[in-house]
């Protein structure tokens, strides 16, 4: 495979999946500029490959994920606390919806990392359990389990907030 073929495939992939790649990064960084950087880094890293991976799409998603994980690990060494990610767009929300959105963000932060990441990828990027399983290198059943538990926990906590 020549790098020309690889680049053509990379272009196609980004045209179809750039939003999902971005949300996959956002699921971990929970912050737009970091997620943007991660996706760009991944694009450049893949563009410089000398060989075409067997599954370019999976490779790219995993690259995004690994880069995002490393980035937050590095960042958290230098911050005492990490505020809840502000990655929901509240501009067109009613005041009540904004309140709910902020509660969702806070409670997402309280979830176990695996549950949080799966919820964000499923809810906001419409990634399937199979796709998320490929990205996280786990089984679809595990992903589904994380999702259900995370969703139930999120709902419980939001109800508690309202009481």
């Amino acid at each position, binding site marked *: 495979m*020549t*790098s*020309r073929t690889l*680049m053509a495939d*990379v*272009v196609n*992939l*980004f*045209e179809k999946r*750039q*939003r999902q*790649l*971005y*949300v996959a990064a*956002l699921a971990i960084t929970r912050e*737009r*500029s970091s997620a*943007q*950087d*991660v*996706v*760009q*880094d*991944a*694009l*450049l*890293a893949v*563009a*410089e*490959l*000398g*060989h075409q*991976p*067997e599954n370019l799409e999976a*490779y790219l998603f*995993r*690259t995004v*994920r*690994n*880069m995002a994980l*490393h*980035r937050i690990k*590095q*960042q958290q*060494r*230098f911050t005492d606390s990490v505020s809840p990610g502000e*990655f*929901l*767009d509240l501009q067109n*929300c009613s005041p*009540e919806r904004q309140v*709910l959105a902020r509660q*969702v963000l806070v409670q997402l932060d309280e979830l176990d990392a695996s549950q949080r990441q799966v919820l964000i990828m499923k*809810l*906001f990027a419409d990634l399937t359990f199979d796709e998320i399983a490929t990205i996280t290198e786990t089984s679809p059943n595990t992903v589904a389990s994380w999702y259900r538990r995370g*969703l139930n926990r*999120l*709902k419980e906590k*939001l109800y508690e907030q*309202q009481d």
Partner: protein
Amino acid sequence: MNSRIDWEADDFERDVGSFAIVEPDVDYSSLARRLASRRRSGIWSGWPAIASLGAGLVLAAVVALNLQVLPTQLDSPAMDTGSVGLETADAQSAVPSANAGSATAYEAGTHYRELARPIAGDDPSIASLVIFFGYPCYPCYQFNPLLGDWQAGLPESASVEQIPATWNEELRHYARIFYTAESLDLTDQAHTRIYAALHDDRQELTELPAVAALFLELGVSGPAFLAAYGSSEVEARLQRAIQANQDYQVQATPAIYVNGRYVVTPSSAGGFSQMLDIASYLVLQPVNRRR
């Protein structure tokens, strides 16, 4: 008004999923197309020189032109990054012209950017290249191996300086490590070792004992490392780097600033090797010297 929400079985999932996320302000597919376009131009630029050879030699030359110096990772996701962000200023620029790949096709605003406020140098007759980098930056780690051969090909009169990015606490920590190595005359060995530690070995170098252990591998005792790390010399170099970051208004790494007037980044150039080609072109142009 009763603001309590009671969700039915499936409503909760739909309700939460209906929130919009903050979208990126980068068009990645355009960026990918630009990279692909530049890659195609680079492949074809050598053809006129080899067109007279037989078909077998032509094919071999195409393969050779396509080979990249960077290490490859077969089916193994690129691990680690500390990328401090890639410059996005050129992400929306026009696709290069049909002659892209030849020196005359490099255009300001497309392949490189002109600084709004050029940086005056001490001696305008000396061509200068300043490379900003960050140890946590994964693209910088990929870019670093290309620099040795490239520098060897520059005019003797050209000065090349690497300056670490310093715009947050993490980067200043790694910048201090860079200058510690420099003060101990271990720049080259430490540079490579630190990149490898962070990106190959996935070590944590955020605590001093880990950094001291790395310098011990390079033959520097703990006390000698600590003395250098905390020295006023290293502090002064760090402060100069912080000032340089501000003067050049560095926003992303890796980035090459040429003669205090131009900046080339991977996204503007279309790749690391292209970045070096454009920097070489800029530094050799007499009209581009600082006044």
